[in-house]
Structure formats: structure tokens, C-alpha cells
């Protein structure tokens, strides 16, 4: 019984197997590329301009941030229908704080306003999320019901807090979260791109070292190198595009005037990476780390795959549910920051129907409602695909009803394709 396991005979490996790429991810990227090319063709090249890609990016951030949290919720066989409403009340709390309460106490434009406002929003999101999680985990009320109730409750609590008023103007520092108002310029953007590239290469290399240390089979060196090139290319490509979007001259002039200077003739400057997009990237990386490399993430997937097994393995699945919904609430608050700053004020209808966009993004991204399966990058990509469709159709001039019909159809189609794919690979559907 002590014979060592003989090594598997290495079968001839195809290109795909050597790269160990996720075919589902490739399919989504393929679909995204097709959508972009088709819209680009119809709009005579207006879709794939730096300007439009920049706008797409900042429009996607709010839904994409929430979609990363929705992956955990759906993986554990729950659902959260209240994310749009929670976003609205977080936005209302932050609006009241930065427009009414804090300026009255500190004076307008005080540097403490932004951090305190953000803190207020995060705490609101965390408390509401934890409360939802407690109702689901400890009181055993189905998440569908808890969050359907929340959908009706929280937006209207926000309405009550603000008396239905639109709150603005927002704190100047706070507005940096919005996108156009808060970009980092080309120099810092290149620097961050280089930093992320180094980190990506380092992570790939360390993964390989860990495998070698335990004498597991590794990819051929050329495949590893190709992965590094693809990762670095994607990161630097995105930075290059965002860095090539020129700030309009009128806007530059106003900036110089505000600083009390005159703009030199022929001066150009570029937007670069928006802070909100950086926020999304950091959250997506952090959530991927949580999902794959922490005990919490492991328990999320275990509880989704077999809740009884998780419980019998000594995992406190009730507390786990509280944590998952609390995380969802915090992410709603961060999305509220971005959405509110982008719109430059708080309105009652902020985030309306976001719950559907967020769920659709997660599902298009391959998260299975039956639980146990889902990826963070998939959900982010799902959000990007949805937003591209929507703004592409708006650009082409598709009538509003048809826009929604197409998006709805794509959602159903995406899940159907996913089911066919799983059937073919022999997975249980």
C-alpha cells in the first residue's frame, strides 16, 4: 500500500491546454470583441475611440463593483434584490452628511468631510447588509423575501431621510470618485500600469515556483511566458487607451484659469486612468484573492456546493451568510460613492433597477444560480458586456424599448449557451 503514485503519462497537449486558459473566459472575451467590432462598424469607428472606451469604463464601474459581491451571494444559493435600494440609501446618507450635516459643523470644503462621508456610507452599507444576512442566516427567511422587502424599504428610507430632495453640490474631494472629475493623468497612469504589470508577472512566477517546490507538473516555459506577455499587454493596452483621451481645450483653459495661470498655446493633456476604474480594479483583485486564497472564500464555495457538507465540516454557515451579505452591503456603499460622484448629486432614483443589472452581470459572467460556481472576473466582464451593449445601442440610435428587449434576450441567451457548454463538458447542469 506504500507504493508512490506513478506520474501521469503526459499526453500530447494542445495549445489551449498548455496555456491552461479558462475556455468560458475566452468565450466571453470573444463575445465582447464581436460586440465591439459590430458596433464599431455600424458607428463608422466611433465606438472604439479612446473617448467612448473611457466613458464605457466609468459607466461600468458602479454595477461591476456590486457584481463582484453578487457572485458570493449567488454562489451560496442566495440572491440580493436590494442592492439598488441599498445603494440609494447609502447615497442618501452620504448626501445628507456632505451637503447638510458636515458643512454645518466643519464649514464648507473642510478636508474631513470626504473621509467622514465615505465612512458614514460604508457603515450604513455594512449594517444593512449584516442585518439582511442575519435575517437570512439565523432567522432562516429566504434571501429572496428578505431582499425583496429590502428593495421596497431601503430606497424609501433614503427618500424619507432626504425629504425626496436632490442633494448637491457634492464635496469637491468626494467628486474625484466619479470618473471625469478624478483622473490621474498620463504619468501616474503609466506608473500604475507598470506596477500592476510587475505584480502580475510576479504572481505568475510565484505560482510556478510553488508548483515546482511540490513537484507538481508545470506549464511549458513558453506558455508561462505567453501568459505574462498577454497580462502585461492587456494592462498596458488599457492604460495606453485611457492615456490617449485628450482633455478638451475648454476644460483645460478653465483649469488654468482656476489656478490663476494662462494656458500655453498648443498645450495638450490627457485624462489617464480614472480613480473609479482604479477602485474597480483594486476591488476585483481583492475579491479574487478572497475567493481563491482565503478560508472565507473557500467556505463560500463549499457552502454553495453542498451546504450540509460545509456545516458538517464545522463551518459556521450562518455567520458566513452574515459576512457575505455584509460584504455585499459594503460594496453597495462603494458603488454609491462612485455613482453619486459621477452624477454630481444624490437623487432619489439613483441606482434604480441596478439589482437587475448586477444579477444579470454576475449570471452572464458564468455564476450559476444553482450555487457553487462563479468567478469575479466573469462578473466584471459580464458588467462590461452589458454596458457595451447598452451604450452601443444608444450610440447607434436603437429605440429605448428595443434596447431593453435586446439586453433581456442576451441575458437568457448567455445562460442557455452556458448550459450547452456545461452539457458538452460533462458537467452537471
Amino acid at each position, binding site marked *: *500500500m*506504500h*507504493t*508512490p*503514485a506513478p506520474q*501521469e503519462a503526459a499526453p500530447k497537449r494542445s495549445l489551449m491546454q498548455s496555456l491552461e486558459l479558462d475556455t468560458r473566459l475566452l468565450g466571453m472575451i470573444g463575445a465582447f470583441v464581436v460586440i465591439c467590432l459590430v458596433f464599431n462598424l455600424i458607428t463608422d469607428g466611433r465606438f472604439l475611440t479612446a473617448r467612448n472606451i473611457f466613458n464605457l469604463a466609468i459607466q461600468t464601474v458602479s454595477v461591476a463593483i456590486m457584481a463582484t459581491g453578487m457572485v458570493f451571494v449567488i454562489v451560496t444559493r442566495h440572491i440580493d434584490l436590494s442592492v439598488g435600494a441599498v445603494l440609494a440609501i447609502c447615497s442618501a446618507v452620504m448626501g445628507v452628511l456632505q451637503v447638510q450635516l458636515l458643512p454645518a459643523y466643519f464649514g464648507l470644503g473642510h478636508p474631513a468631510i470626504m473621509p467622514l462621508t465615505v465612512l458614514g456610507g460604508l457603515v450604513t452599507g455594512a449594517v444593512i447588509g449584516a442585518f439582511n444576512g442575519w435575517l437570512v442566516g439565523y432567522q432562516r427567511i429566504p434571501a429572496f423575501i428578505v431582499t425583496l422587502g429590502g428593495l421596497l424599504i431601503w430606497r424609501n428610507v433614503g427618500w424619507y431621510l432626504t425629504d425626496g430632495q436632490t442633494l448637491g453640490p457634492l464635496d469637491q474631494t468626494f467628486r474625484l470618485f466619479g470618473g471625469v472629475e478624478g483622473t490621474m493623468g498620463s504619468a501616474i497612469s503609466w506608473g500604475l500600469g507598470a506596477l500592476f504589470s510587475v505584480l502580475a508577472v510576479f504572481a505568475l512566477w510565484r505560482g510556478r515556483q*510553488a*508548483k515546482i*517546490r*511540490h513537484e*507538481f507538473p508545470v506549464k511549458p516555459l513558453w506558455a508561462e511566458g505567453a501568459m505574462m506577455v498577454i497580462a502585461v499587454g492587456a494592462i498596458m493596452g488599457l492604460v495606453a487607451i485611457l492615456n490617449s483621451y485628450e482633455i478638451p481645450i475648454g476644460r483645460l483653459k478653465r483649469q488654468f484659469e482656476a489656478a490663476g495661470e494662462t494656458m500655453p498655446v498648443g498645450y495638450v493633456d490627457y485624462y489617464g486612468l480614472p480613480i473609479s476604474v482604479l477602485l474597480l480594479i483594486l476591488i476585483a483583485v481583492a475579491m479574487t*484573492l478572497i475567493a481563491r*486564497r*482565503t*478560508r472565507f472564500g*473557500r*467556505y463560500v*464555495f*463549499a*457552502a*454553495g*456546493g*453542498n451546504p*450540509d*457538507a*460545509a*456545516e*458538517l*465540516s*464545522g*463551518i*459556521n454557515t450562518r455567520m458566513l451568510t452574515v459576512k457575505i451579505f455584509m460584504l455585499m452591503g459594503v460594496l453597495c456603499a462603494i458603488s454609491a460613492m462612485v455613482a453619486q460622484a459621477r452624477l454630481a448629486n444624490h437623487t432619489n432614483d439613483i441606482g434604480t433597477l441596478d439589482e437587475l443589472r448586477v444579477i444579470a452581470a454576475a449570471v452572464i459572467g458564468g455564476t450559476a444560480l444553482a450555487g*457553487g*460556481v462563479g468567478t469575479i472576473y466573469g462578473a466584471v466582464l459580464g458588467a462590461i458586456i452589458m454596458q457595451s451593449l447598452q451604450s452601443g445601442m444608444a450610440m447607434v440610435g436603437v429605440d429605448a424599448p428595443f434596447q431593453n428587449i435586446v439586453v433581456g434576450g442576451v441575458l437568457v441567451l448567455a445562460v442557455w449557451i452556458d448550459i450547452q457548454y456545461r452539457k458538452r463538458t*460533462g*458537467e*452537471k447542469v
Partner: protein
Amino acid sequence: MTRQGKPLVELRDISIAFGGIKAVDHVTIDLHPGEVVGLLGHNGAGKSTLIKCLSGAYQMDSGAIYINGEKAEIRNPRDARRYNIETIYQTLALADNLDAASNLFLGRELVTPLGFVDDAQMEAETRKIMGRLNPNFRKFKEPVKALSGGQRQSVAIARAVYFNAKILIMDEPTAALGPHETQMVAELIEELKAQGLGIFLIEHDIHNVMKLCDRASVMKNGQLVGTVDVKQVTDEDILGMIILGKTPDRGMV
């Protein structure tokens, strides 16, 4: 087999009811180190329910559990694991979407100094123990739903054995297995017994009971019919206990 000294486990006067139905009704059994005690009875006799009180999956209504002579408080599976009680459930309790290593270490992951789960280390440990338990096991990367019944069973067994269990509960460990794998489980039970573990074995196959167990406790309708020394009774005696609830004239302990 002599049963001197303190028993490893004593379940004293355990009762548990579900909605007025007494699933387990004042049952007392015990287990010594290096001993295999078979739990027998019809479906619904209360065997699994009784054992789930010990593994922490259910909380008993009344009665007490003593481990090494001391009263033990077992309210959930985490408590049971602290007393070195490991359970192989009939359903195997595996998360189908995770690979073998993640299942083996579920709830007790190995972590790096930074607090991240150390998948490579866990896979290496899994390869080691699987090399011992089931040398033909190859599918370390696939989710366990891609495994055969026997392979899944060996993952569940590896999980129970890896963490130095003192008390092992096996709920029909051979139900889904072919003859070769059943033989492997039998060898494993002998080996663990020699190491001084105490094993509760829930089993329907009377031949396995006669072969593997030192004593057998028979339950019927939630009550204990009796406990016999397997060496001193015949198949028919035990079947009579299971079917008729009749205690034999000899071998009662």
C-alpha cells in the same frame, strides 16, 4: 478482546425526538480504544440519529456523553472535532464543486504565514495520504463530482483519517463500493483498530459485522435491543435481534 479500564466513549441514556416521534429513546452504549462496535437495525431504527448526537450534527434532548470518563459538551461539529471525533457520513458530506484537497482540509485549511490558504501544500499532503489509502487515485485537480463512488469514498475516508482521529464514526462506509474497495476499507479498519482508535460502524451487511466488529449494538424503533459480543453469537442471533427485537440467550454484554 478485553474491555478493561475507562471506555473511550460512553453515550448514556441518550434521547432525541423530532416533532413527537422518539427517534432515539434512552439508549446507552459505549466504545473502548482499539474496538469496533457495530450499530445495527432497520432503516429508521435510530442508528444514524444516535451517532449524529456524537458527531455534533444533532443536539440530544437528554442524556450525556462521556469521553475518557469526562463529560463532554458537543453542540456542533466543531466541538466534536475538538474531541478528535471524525465522521464518515453515509452521504459523504463532500462539496462537489471543490477538488479533493479542498474537501480533505475543509474547515481546517493549511495557511501560509500571510494567512492565505496554501493550496499547493494541501495538494501535496493529499497526494501523500491518498498514495497510502488508494494508490490508484489520480484526479487531484478535478472537482470531486467528477470522481467515481469509490474515489469519493476514499476522499471522505482520507479526511477522517488524516487528522489523527481517536474516535471514528463510519456510517455504512462500504455501501457504494465494489468488492475490491470493500476489502480495502476492511483492511483500513483493522489497521486503525491496531493503532488504538475506537470505531463505531453502522453497517447493514451482517457478514461485514461478523468480520469487522468486536461487539454489536442493535436498535429497533429508537430503543436499544441489546449489545452482544460478536464472537459468542451467530448470524441468526443478530438477525433475530434486528428483525424481532429478541435478545439471544448468550453473548449479551
